[in-house]
């Protein structure tokens, strides 16, 4: 339960940072990267709780949307398939975050992604850094 509380705190920090950057015109999907990294360290029920808290906070309209569905379902899919590769978790985390960002960008706005990839690369870079910073302490916590 202590680990879940730490996860909740990290998620809230990611959300606050995401909103703070967005209000300055810099859009980073830090919460999405955090949830993907969480998929490697939490069990499925804990992950669902954290995903629902993220959806509760991020959803901006009283209806479902493709981006919210991807935000919710992709981390769960990563959790369910995390034992397929048997690589180092940090490599799997980098792959999963990259794949997640590619999926959400292509589904939501494939054309502008191809026309101007800088926004995507900035977002992905920030997501990879934040996701790795989240993964290492929580993964070691799980091992000790």
């Amino acid at each position, binding site marked *: *339960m202590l680990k879940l509380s730490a996860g909740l705190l990290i998620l*809230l920090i990611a*959300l*606050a940072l*995401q*909103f*703070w950057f*967005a*209000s*300055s*015109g810099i*859009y980073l*999907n830090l919460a999405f990267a955090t949830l993907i990294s969480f998929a490697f360290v939490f069990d499925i*029920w*804990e992950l*669902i*709780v954290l995903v*629902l*808290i993220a*959806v*509760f*906070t*991020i*959803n*901006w*309209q*009283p*209806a479902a949307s493709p*981006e919210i569905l991807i935000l919710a379902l992709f981390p769960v899919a990563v959790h369910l398939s995390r034992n397929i590769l048997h690589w180092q978790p940090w490599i799997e985390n980098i792959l999963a975050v990259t794949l997640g960002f590619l999926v*959400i*960008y292509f589904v*939501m*706005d494939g054309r*502008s992604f191809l026309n101007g990839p800088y*926004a995507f690369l900035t*977002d992905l870079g920030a997501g990879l850094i934040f996701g790795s910073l989240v993964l290492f302490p929580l993964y070691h916590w799980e091992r000790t």
Partner: protein
Amino acid sequence: MRKRNGSFLVVCIAVLAAIVFFEPSYGWKFRAFLDRSAASPSDGQNLAAQNQVLMAELAKLQSVAAQMPDAPSGYIRAMVYSRYPMNFKNEILADAGENVGVFVGKAVTFQGVLVGSVEKIFKDSSLIQTVFDGTFKVPVRVGNAGYDALFTGGSYPKAVSIRKNAPVHVGDIVYAAAPGLPYGLPIAVVSATSTSPDDLFEEAELSFAYDINGIQTVLIAK
């Protein structure tokens, strides 16, 4: 102990899922608490917006004085609930919906300046596509002479398809000239001009009198 934790998590999931599906407004309030940086617009922004309104008024009167329709009278004031959190769209959710007579496609203004149009309506809220959304496009006119152009939204909105060699200058007002929107509603002012990549038209970069992230209330046309 493990079983008790499992039961606690299942209860958490059920409560969270119920709130997400049935009472999303709690999420918007929580988000507003986290997003403390959304400042209210300053007096400077208000004055700049009012200045644009006056410039648009002047442009309208000079170019189409004889054909000018009456200004729209009815607006619905609405508070901004939440904003689109990613970089694929630019939308805001306002707290006026079907219950107060909002309709899809209606103009949304801030201090008399067009900030977007109603995209989707819900029972007591409406989703507004702002002029900074990449898919927002609306016919406009530029300057006192009223040169036709197409406003294209995005992170850096532009007025494109302006007749080549039209004397468009920095500081000229850009105002709406689209069916469904009140004629002459100011949108922005020209900040730079250039020729289109195909060399057939002129384009204008635009500057705005407000910060879209600082807007707390809007007016929705009835």
